[in-house]
Protein backbone atom coordinates (compact mmCIF):
# COMPACT_ATOMS: atom_id res chain seq x y z
CA UNK A 1 0.00 0.00 0.00
CA UNK A 2 3.00 2.27 -0.38
CA UNK A 3 4.09 2.61 3.26
CA UNK A 4 7.84 3.01 3.66
CA UNK A 5 8.26 1.39 7.05
CA UNK A 6 5.84 -1.02 8.69
CA UNK A 7 6.52 -2.76 11.98
CA UNK A 8 4.70 -5.61 13.63
CA UNK A 9 4.63 -5.42 17.42
CA UNK A 10 4.25 -9.18 17.73
CA UNK A 11 3.96 -9.38 21.54
CA UNK A 12 0.85 -7.19 21.20
CA UNK A 13 -1.12 -5.16 23.71
CA UNK A 14 -1.18 -7.93 26.32
CA UNK A 15 2.57 -7.53 26.67
CA UNK A 16 2.22 -3.74 26.84
CA UNK A 17 -0.37 -3.97 29.62
CA UNK A 18 1.47 -6.70 31.51
CA UNK A 19 4.49 -4.42 31.60
CA UNK A 20 2.38 -1.81 33.39
CA UNK A 21 2.39 0.64 30.49
CA UNK A 22 -0.61 2.96 30.10
CA UNK A 23 -3.61 2.04 27.98
CA UNK A 24 -6.77 3.92 27.11
CA UNK A 25 -10.19 2.38 27.41
CA UNK A 26 -13.74 3.27 26.51
CA UNK A 27 -14.97 0.86 29.18
CA UNK A 28 -14.18 1.97 32.68
CA UNK A 29 -13.24 -1.32 34.22
CA UNK A 30 -11.17 -0.76 37.35
CA UNK A 31 -7.84 -2.49 37.12
CA UNK A 32 -5.35 -3.62 39.73
CA UNK A 33 -2.98 -0.82 38.68
CA UNK A 34 -5.66 1.70 39.78
CA UNK A 35 -5.59 0.41 43.34
CA UNK A 36 -2.00 -0.52 43.95
CA UNK A 37 -0.18 -0.02 47.23
CA UNK A 38 3.28 1.08 46.19
CA UNK A 39 4.71 1.83 49.63
CA UNK A 40 5.88 -1.61 50.67
CA UNK A 41 8.97 -2.98 52.41
CA UNK A 42 11.49 -4.94 50.36
CA UNK A 43 14.58 -6.96 51.19
CA UNK A 44 17.50 -8.51 49.33
CA UNK A 45 18.43 -12.20 49.40
CA UNK A 46 21.46 -11.50 51.56
CA UNK A 47 19.42 -9.71 54.22
CA UNK A 48 18.60 -11.31 57.54
CA UNK A 49 15.21 -11.81 59.16
CA UNK A 50 15.89 -8.80 61.40
CA UNK A 51 16.09 -6.54 58.33
CA UNK A 52 12.76 -7.85 57.07
CA UNK A 53 11.15 -7.44 60.49
CA UNK A 54 12.36 -3.87 60.78
CA UNK A 55 11.20 -3.01 57.26
CA UNK A 56 7.75 -4.52 57.88
CA UNK A 57 7.42 -2.78 61.24
CA UNK A 58 8.31 0.64 59.82
CA UNK A 59 5.56 0.47 57.25
CA UNK A 60 3.11 -1.64 59.21
CA UNK A 61 3.12 -4.32 56.52
CA UNK A 62 2.50 -8.03 57.02
CA UNK A 63 4.59 -9.12 54.06
CA UNK A 64 7.96 -8.27 52.59
CA UNK A 65 8.98 -9.16 49.00
CA UNK A 66 12.56 -10.21 48.37
CA UNK A 67 13.95 -8.60 45.21
CA UNK A 68 17.22 -8.49 43.31
CA UNK A 69 19.07 -5.34 42.23
CA UNK A 70 16.78 -4.95 39.24
CA UNK A 71 13.70 -5.07 41.45
CA UNK A 72 12.69 -8.51 40.17
CA UNK A 73 10.77 -10.54 42.73
CA UNK A 74 12.61 -13.62 44.00
CA UNK A 75 10.53 -14.50 47.03
CA UNK A 76 8.25 -13.37 49.80
CA UNK A 77 8.34 -13.41 53.60
CA UNK A 78 5.16 -13.08 55.60
CA UNK A 79 4.07 -13.39 59.19
CA UNK A 80 6.36 -16.43 59.67
CA UNK A 81 9.32 -14.08 59.79
CA UNK A 82 8.38 -13.12 63.34
CA UNK A 83 9.12 -16.71 64.48
CA UNK A 84 12.55 -16.77 62.81
CA UNK A 85 15.75 -15.88 64.71
CA UNK A 86 17.00 -12.44 63.71
CA UNK A 87 20.18 -13.77 62.08
CA UNK A 88 18.35 -16.17 59.75
CA UNK A 89 18.93 -15.25 56.09
CA UNK A 90 15.61 -14.35 54.46
CA UNK A 91 16.52 -16.74 51.65
CA UNK A 92 15.97 -19.62 54.11
CA UNK A 93 12.53 -18.54 55.25
CA UNK A 94 11.08 -16.94 52.14
CA UNK A 95 8.49 -18.45 49.86
CA UNK A 96 10.33 -18.63 46.52
CA UNK A 97 8.55 -17.57 43.30
CA UNK A 98 5.41 -16.28 45.04
CA UNK A 99 2.08 -15.79 43.29
CA UNK A 100 1.93 -12.53 41.40
CA UNK A 101 -0.52 -10.76 39.13
CA UNK A 102 -0.18 -8.17 36.40
CA UNK A 103 -1.33 -4.55 36.78
CA UNK A 104 -3.68 -4.95 33.80
CA UNK A 105 -5.91 -7.53 35.51
CA UNK A 106 -9.37 -6.29 36.50
CA UNK A 107 -10.00 -5.85 40.20
CA UNK A 108 -12.93 -8.23 39.99
CA UNK A 109 -10.79 -10.94 38.44
CA UNK A 110 -8.00 -10.33 40.95
CA UNK A 111 -10.38 -10.57 43.90
CA UNK A 112 -11.69 -13.92 42.60
CA UNK A 113 -8.15 -15.17 42.21
CA UNK A 114 -7.23 -14.21 45.77
CA UNK A 115 -10.41 -15.91 46.90
CA UNK A 116 -9.51 -19.15 45.16
CA UNK A 117 -5.96 -19.07 46.53
CA UNK A 118 -7.24 -18.06 49.98
CA UNK A 119 -4.76 -15.21 50.31
CA UNK A 120 -5.40 -11.66 51.47
CA UNK A 121 -2.92 -9.79 49.31
CA UNK A 122 -0.86 -10.43 46.21
CA UNK A 123 2.28 -8.94 44.71
CA UNK A 124 1.79 -7.04 41.48
CA UNK A 125 4.62 -7.30 38.97
CA UNK A 126 5.34 -6.43 35.36
CA UNK A 127 5.67 -9.22 32.84
CA UNK A 128 9.44 -9.30 33.50
CA UNK A 129 8.87 -9.85 37.22
CA UNK A 130 9.70 -6.35 38.39
CA UNK A 131 7.79 -5.45 41.52
CA UNK A 132 5.20 -2.67 41.21
CA UNK A 133 3.34 -3.01 44.49
CA UNK A 134 0.78 -4.98 46.42
CA UNK A 135 -2.92 -5.43 45.76
CA UNK A 136 -5.37 -6.05 48.58
CA UNK A 137 -9.09 -6.25 47.75
CA UNK A 138 -11.39 -3.87 49.58
CA UNK A 139 -14.11 -5.15 51.85
CA UNK A 140 -16.96 -6.42 49.76
CA UNK A 141 -14.54 -7.73 47.18
CA UNK A 142 -12.95 -10.03 49.70
CA UNK A 143 -13.37 -13.68 50.21
CA UNK A 144 -16.85 -15.16 50.14
CA UNK A 145 -18.05 -15.46 53.70
CA UNK A 146 -18.53 -18.86 55.20
CA UNK A 147 -21.96 -19.62 56.60
CA UNK A 148 -20.63 -18.76 60.09
CA UNK A 149 -19.19 -15.43 59.03
CA UNK A 150 -22.30 -14.44 57.10
CA UNK A 151 -24.22 -14.00 60.36
CA UNK A 152 -22.71 -12.98 63.65
CA UNK A 153 -22.47 -15.89 66.12
CA UNK A 154 -24.90 -14.06 68.42
CA UNK A 155 -27.63 -14.57 65.82
CA UNK A 156 -27.60 -18.28 66.64
CA UNK A 157 -28.52 -17.57 70.25
Amino acid sequence: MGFREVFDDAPGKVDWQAYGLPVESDDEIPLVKDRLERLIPVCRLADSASVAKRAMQEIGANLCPIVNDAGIVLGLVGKDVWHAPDATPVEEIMEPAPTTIRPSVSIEEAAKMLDSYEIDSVLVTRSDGKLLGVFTPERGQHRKKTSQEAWPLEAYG
Partner: protein
Amino acid sequence: MPQNTDRDQVRELLRQGAQLVEVLPSKQYQKAHLPGTINLPLKNLNRDTATRLLKDKPVIVYCYDYQ
Protein backbone atom coordinates in the same frame (compact mmCIF):
# COMPACT_ATOMS: atom_id res chain seq x y z
CA MET B 1 7.00 -7.33 4.67
CA PRO B 2 6.62 -5.85 8.20
CA GLN B 3 9.63 -5.90 10.48
CA ASN B 4 9.14 -7.55 13.84
CA THR B 5 9.55 -5.25 16.77
CA ASP B 6 9.07 -5.24 20.51
CA ARG B 7 7.85 -3.04 23.30
CA ASP B 8 11.06 -1.06 23.72
CA GLN B 9 11.43 -0.37 20.03
CA VAL B 10 7.76 0.60 19.83
CA ARG B 11 8.35 3.25 22.48
CA GLU B 12 11.34 4.56 20.60
CA LEU B 13 9.45 4.63 17.29
CA LEU B 14 6.58 6.49 18.93
CA ARG B 15 9.02 9.12 20.18
CA GLN B 16 10.00 9.54 16.52
CA GLY B 17 6.40 10.07 15.44
CA ALA B 18 5.34 6.58 14.35
CA GLN B 19 1.66 5.76 13.87
CA LEU B 20 0.10 3.01 15.96
CA VAL B 21 -2.59 0.78 14.48
CA GLU B 22 -4.63 -1.84 16.30
CA VAL B 23 -6.01 -4.42 13.88
CA LEU B 24 -8.43 -6.10 16.29
CA PRO B 25 -12.22 -5.68 15.99
CA SER B 26 -13.53 -2.40 17.40
CA LYS B 27 -15.10 -4.03 20.47
CA GLN B 28 -11.69 -5.21 21.61
CA TYR B 29 -10.16 -1.88 20.72
CA GLN B 30 -12.70 -0.12 22.92
CA LYS B 31 -11.88 -2.38 25.88
CA ALA B 32 -8.26 -1.28 25.89
CA HIS B 33 -5.79 0.11 23.41
CA LEU B 34 -2.40 1.77 23.46
CA PRO B 35 -2.68 5.57 23.73
CA GLY B 36 -2.99 7.37 20.42
CA THR B 37 -3.81 4.20 18.47
CA ILE B 38 -5.95 4.17 15.34
CA ASN B 39 -8.30 1.21 15.04
CA LEU B 40 -8.24 -0.47 11.63
CA PRO B 41 -9.76 -3.94 12.04
CA LEU B 42 -7.96 -6.42 9.83
CA LYS B 43 -11.06 -7.46 7.94
CA ASN B 44 -11.67 -3.83 6.95
CA LEU B 45 -8.06 -3.05 6.07
CA ASN B 46 -7.67 -1.98 2.43
CA ARG B 47 -6.28 0.90 0.39
CA ASP B 48 -9.28 3.11 1.18
CA THR B 49 -9.32 2.61 4.95
CA ALA B 50 -5.53 2.93 5.06
CA THR B 51 -5.70 6.49 3.73
CA ARG B 52 -6.07 7.61 7.35
CA LEU B 53 -2.39 6.85 7.76
CA LEU B 54 0.50 9.03 6.63
CA LYS B 55 2.74 7.26 4.13
CA ASP B 56 5.92 9.04 5.16
CA LYS B 57 5.78 8.03 8.86
CA PRO B 58 6.51 4.55 10.21
CA VAL B 59 3.46 2.43 10.95
CA ILE B 60 3.35 0.00 13.87
CA VAL B 61 0.60 -2.60 13.81
CA TYR B 62 -0.31 -4.72 16.78
CA CYS B 63 -2.80 -7.33 17.80
CA TYR B 64 -3.69 -9.00 21.12
CA ASP B 65 -0.53 -11.07 21.50
CA TYR B 66 1.69 -13.37 19.47
CA GLN B 67 -1.22 -15.20 17.84
